[in-house]
């Protein structure tokens, strides 16, 4: 199964870079021919382009929810993102729209998309480091992804 592990985020915006931090950890730990680890600071149509051609995608990103506690990690599917905070970018379409577009156009999207979302504190301060509680989730999320890679949900 061709798998893409994709760390999303901006690595110079504190916790917004958590996905990228985890991807960089995973690059050291993953040694499978069928698994590619990438990082990207984009969404919408660009994301569609990245996902095309893989059987499975594991995406890691930051999230901020109304009642969430910083440091919590959620395992989600794409249906959880019908409306997101980043829906309002004036330059692009959001994740849910991009996936739906891809489906309708017959873009070969992964059959399985799993998203590990980390509840973060700060996505607006310029910094190359995550805040302490979020930094502590890096090994945790890394382990979760490695475990996910070991699971074959092809049914």
């Amino acid at each position: 199964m061709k798998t893409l592990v994709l760390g999303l985020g901006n690595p110079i915006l504190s916790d917004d870079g958590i996905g990228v931090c985890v991807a960089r950890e995973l690059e050291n730990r993953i040694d499978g021919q069928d698994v590619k680890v990438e990082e990207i600071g984009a969404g919408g149509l660009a994301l569609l382009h990245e996902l095309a051609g893989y059987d499975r995608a594991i995406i890691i990103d930051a999230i901020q929810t109304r009642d969430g506690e910083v440091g919590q990690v959620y395992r989600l599917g794409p249906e959880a993102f019908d409306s997101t905070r980043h829906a309002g970018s004036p330059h692009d379409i959001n994740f849910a729209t991009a996936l739906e577009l891809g489906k309708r156009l017959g873009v070969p999207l992964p059959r399985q998309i799993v998203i590990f979302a980390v509840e973060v504190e700060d996505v607006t301060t310029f910094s190359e480091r995550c805040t302490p509680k979020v930094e502590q989730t890096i090994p945790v999320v890394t382990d979760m992804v490695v475990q996910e890679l070991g699971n074959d949900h092809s049914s």
Partner: protein
Amino acid sequence: MASCKATDAVYHVDPPTAAKKVRELFYCAHMIHSHIAHFYALAAPDFVLGPTSDPAERNILGLVAKVGLEIGGEVIKHRAYAQDIQAVIGGKATHPVFALPGGISKPVTEEERKDFEEKAKSLVDFAKFSVNLFNDLVLSNKEYLDLITGDIYTMKSYYMGLVDSSNRVNFYEGDIRVVDEDGKEVAKFKPAEYLDYIAEHTEPWSYLKFPFLKKVGWKGLVEGKDSGVYRVSPLARLNAADGMATPLAQAEYEKMYQTLGGKPVHATLVFHWARLIEIVYAAERLLELCQDKEITSPEVRTIPTATPDEGVGVVEAPRGTLIHHYQTDDRGIIQKANLIVATGHNYPAMNMSVKRAAQGLIKKGVVASEGLLNMVEMAFRAYDPCMACATHNLPGQMPLEVVIYNSRGEVAERLNRL
């Protein structure tokens, strides 16, 4: 690319011509991907579905449902071609890593060039298709044509854009040219001279500054030749130039001005039409560069020898003129940086466009809520604004509030999407 050119200037180094051509090739691909995404994902839905249609349909999904899956597939494919060209030259499509003071990090191979050439040919066809689509769907629809040329979306201003030595549009380099609302040239200057021509006003209610033409002066958010408000954008570029440097784009340029009754055009929604003409130019120019003998030259870097100090780099970003100005210490570490981005240049005009649209759409206290919010947003969206870049800060969403006051100055209604 503006940053890259600024570093050339900081180090007082002139890249070899092959490096400039490869940079320009990359840059044409960049313009194409951005313009395609903007037109099809953001602008076209308003015209194809209609500006007051149901928001659930008024997006790229609705567009594809209406024009067909095949067209949708072509959009994704051609945008990907442009991204792929950037990725091969630049290392990555987003945040490329190939530009250096004095040139670029590696030449283009013959194999890569052949691949780019095939993609470029397809991009020229797709660009022509996109302009024709606009013609068929929009221009032959009287309602839309009236909307585009109507008063609520019209604003007179000065226009600014980069031009080559023949005053034709160039995205990568040239002089900055400014024309007035009648199309007469009022300024033409080198990027390094920008501070003699552009100044910035501030208001306490915004993080974003209000650039204006220094020699005309700041008179507030008003139109007229005495007001220093100017615009950048695809339409501004076409207004500020005397033509396009490639044949198909030139034909489209002439057709646009003929259809709309001459130059310059002040209709804000025509930014979208101009954007499509620019896709044609970018694709033709991309193909020209792919077929240039020098494009695979190994001579792509001049090592700087001067002590770095200060420099200005200007390009035409998809949304308009982009200025990067750096002052460094003698190690080349930036001490001061001034950026004026397209959305910054356009900020005064954007405010005026939105206000005009709102004033035109709300009559005698009657507000058509959802449709109105979108039509006001259309005025704003034509500028394809990036408030994050312009304020060097972050948006989280695109909030929009229209406040309606009665004749006594009291708030009668608030419509918002906050």
